[in-house]
């Protein structure tokens, strides 16, 4: 038996842990672009902020896009509710609230991540330290994930946690693709300029997939392959299909355990069926942007339905 409020806390705890890490990854990819291509750096930082869903808030505070300001805003600014620091703080507050549902190892890893990031992000980050800060953020979230997977019982507590992780991750991957969808469109990709290569690598880097891509496809970057990898590949842990495979699985466990199906089950299955049946050609033919916009909308609805069906509030 699980309280609705506890399920809610677990769900958001994991969304925010995922988000804390995604912010670091986005800054990492932006940094790489800015280092390799100084001319359009501000445009790249704009894309990063768009992917993070933080563009509007950023513009209210700053007039120009500089690496230092964007990194500060996305990593340590506590007035930005999605920054790594805010996210880890929210994750920890949720973890504190649901503490009785967590193993000691999981709670301690979250508490320690919070303590160590709070210390590290207390002062503005020197540009020279940025790479090591990004590494540290990824390491802390990896430790949380490790303790979580290593010690948690695979029950409803685990299911609600995973739902949070995969809803957030699917949203993140879809946004990254949508911000850059135009560089993946065939009309541009035929040109295959150096610029495009950088852009493509940046997309892969923001989902930590620039190396694994080469293991699956040939060494050349092809826009259809990149889109295929991030949308349809079943084994790529940040692809939309991968996320929905697990969303459906955990929803099914819950449905079987409780002996009751809800609206969220239908929504997740519909998206999963669509991803399974689709080919990348179909998606491009129907319009990549339209596909992604629809996906993000449905994914948000799934989150709302989970909250309602399982009495989060």
């Amino acid at each position, binding site marked *: *038996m*699980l*309280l*609705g*409020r506890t*399920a809610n806390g677990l769900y958001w705890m994991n969304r925010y842990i995922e988000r804390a890490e995604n912010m670091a990854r986005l800054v990492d990819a932006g940094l790489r672009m800015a280092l390799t291509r100084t001319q359009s750096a501000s445009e790249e930082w704009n894309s990063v902020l768009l992917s993070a869903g933080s563009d509007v808030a950023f513009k209210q505070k700053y007039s120009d896009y500089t690496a230092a300001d964007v990194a500060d805003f996305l990593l340590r600014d506590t007035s930005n509710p999605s920054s790594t620091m805010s996210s880890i703080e929210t994750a920890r*507050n949720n973890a*504190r*609230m649901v*503490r*009785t549902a967590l193993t*000691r190892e999981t*709670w*301690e890893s979250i*508490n*320690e991540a919070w*303590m160590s990031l709070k210390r590290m992000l207390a002062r503005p980050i020197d540009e020279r330290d940025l790479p090591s800060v990004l590494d540290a953020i990824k390491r802390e979230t990896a430790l949380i994930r490790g303790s979580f997977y290593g010690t948690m019982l695979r029950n*409803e507590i685990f299911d*609600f946690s995973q739902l949070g992780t995969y809803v957030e991750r699917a949203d993140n991957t879809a946004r990254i693709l949508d911000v850059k969808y135009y560089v993946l469109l065939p009309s541009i990709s035929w040109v295959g300029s150096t610029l495009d290569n950088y852009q493509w690598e940046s997309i892969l880097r923001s989902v930590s997939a620039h190396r694994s891509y080469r293991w699956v496809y040939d060494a050349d970057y092809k826009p259809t392959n990149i889109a295929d990898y991030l949308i349809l590949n079943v084994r790529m842990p940040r692809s939309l299909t991968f996320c929905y495979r697990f969303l459906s699985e955990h929803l099914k466990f*819950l449905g079987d355990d*409780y002996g*009751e199906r809800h609206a969220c089950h239908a929504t997740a299955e519909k998206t999963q069926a669509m991803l399974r049946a689709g080919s990348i050609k179909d998606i491009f033919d129907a319009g990549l942007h339209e596909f992604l916009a629809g996906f993000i909308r449905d994914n948000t609805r799934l989150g709302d339905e989970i909250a309602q069906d*399982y*009495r989060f509030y």
Partner: protein
Amino acid sequence: MRLAAFDEMLPEVSGLRRPYSAYDRWLKEQDPARLTEKMQDAERVFRKTGITFAVYGEQEASERLIPFDIVPRIISGNEWRRLTQGIEQRVQALNAFLDDIYHRQEILRAGRVPRDLIAKNEAFLPEMIGVRPPAGVYTHIIGVDIVRISEDDFYVLEDNARTPSGVSYMLENRETMMQLFPELFQKIKVRPVENYPQLLRQSLAAVRPQSTKGAPTIAVLTPGSFNSAYFEHAFLADQMGVQLVEGQDLRVVDGHVAMRTTEGYKQIDVLYRRVDDSFLDPLTFRPDSALGIPGIMDVYRAGNITIANAPGTGIADDKAIYSYMPEIVEFYTGRKAILGNIPTWRCSEPDSLKYVLEHIHELVIKEVHGSGGYGMLVGPAATKKECEAFAKKLAAKPSNYIAQPTLALSTCPILTEKGLAPRHVDLRPYVLVSDRIQIVPGGLTRVALKEGSLVVNSSQGGGTKDTWVLDD
């Protein structure tokens, strides 16, 4: 301020006391540098596990640790037996008093306690008149604060009959000591306290409503994660294997209190609440309370839920009632109180007020409804100006205060940078009441870390120690 205090390990007159002899032998073999290291280890353990408490009114550092001292406070088996007899008697009297006060009020008719003291007391809940809680128990979980001033003299400083806190520290302190010094526990037979959560669970199950079918569903009610004692609420729920609920999780469904789960509303039979009376039910008490459950008092009156501790138990541990405890104990148990009270001046009485105002620099003066060491004056430690300011407050509303002599609380050594140094301590054993009374051998020893200080409250710079009751 210096008081000649009785040291529980090394009294000046008689030398090392027996309960400490084995520990002392071990201590002398230890490398001081290693002990200092262990002290730091202990702090790391506490911070990592998040055993913190919130301090009201401090914006920064809103989560702090209660300092932990690694020298245990040791009580012999004999001393403990004496204490438990006194505590049991007192707890029986407290429950009998509550039952009487909310029913026939014999003790008022007999004139042993003034009627005004009850009727005009905010801690007295008229809503509880005539209500008989399940199993007839009012105060289920009690923390009795005890001080010692000599080899044989123990006094009760305060009865905490509402929602005593600190038991998680008793358990974590022991856990930490066992991690730091496993070899000590092989050498010295210390009675275990670890089973407190099981005992608490059994005790709560035993006082379930009569109508409960099958195993009762138990939950701990917390005001939420921003409450200063939240760690303890979560800890106890976790250790007992029951749900930790907030008011927003609960509502009254079909005459029962039920919690919102992922599968719908589920009935609760026993609620261990860590929310004050006035916040419990916005329909009965404070209408602005968002922490409680509208209608829970109706369910309670119908006998469909056990609330532990019962609403209205505050009338038994009120500081104004405290001074009548010797009479109360005798009235209900027919015997003189085994554990004494500290002599107390009720400032509401003109003669007492006069005495207190004349001797303000010698006395400890407390607010009747205060707790946690807030709003009190320790005369001998206060400046002349502070005394004068306090005297004005006192004269303006005498009935709000009681006064007690400044006692030379016993001391126990703590480990400082310069080695062992004596500090004043008190003791809070935890008592569970169901169809029987159980006292876990141990308790929370609070220690005033500042040299000479008599205020042991954690909110005022106090620390804690592991408390050992020897198996002898």
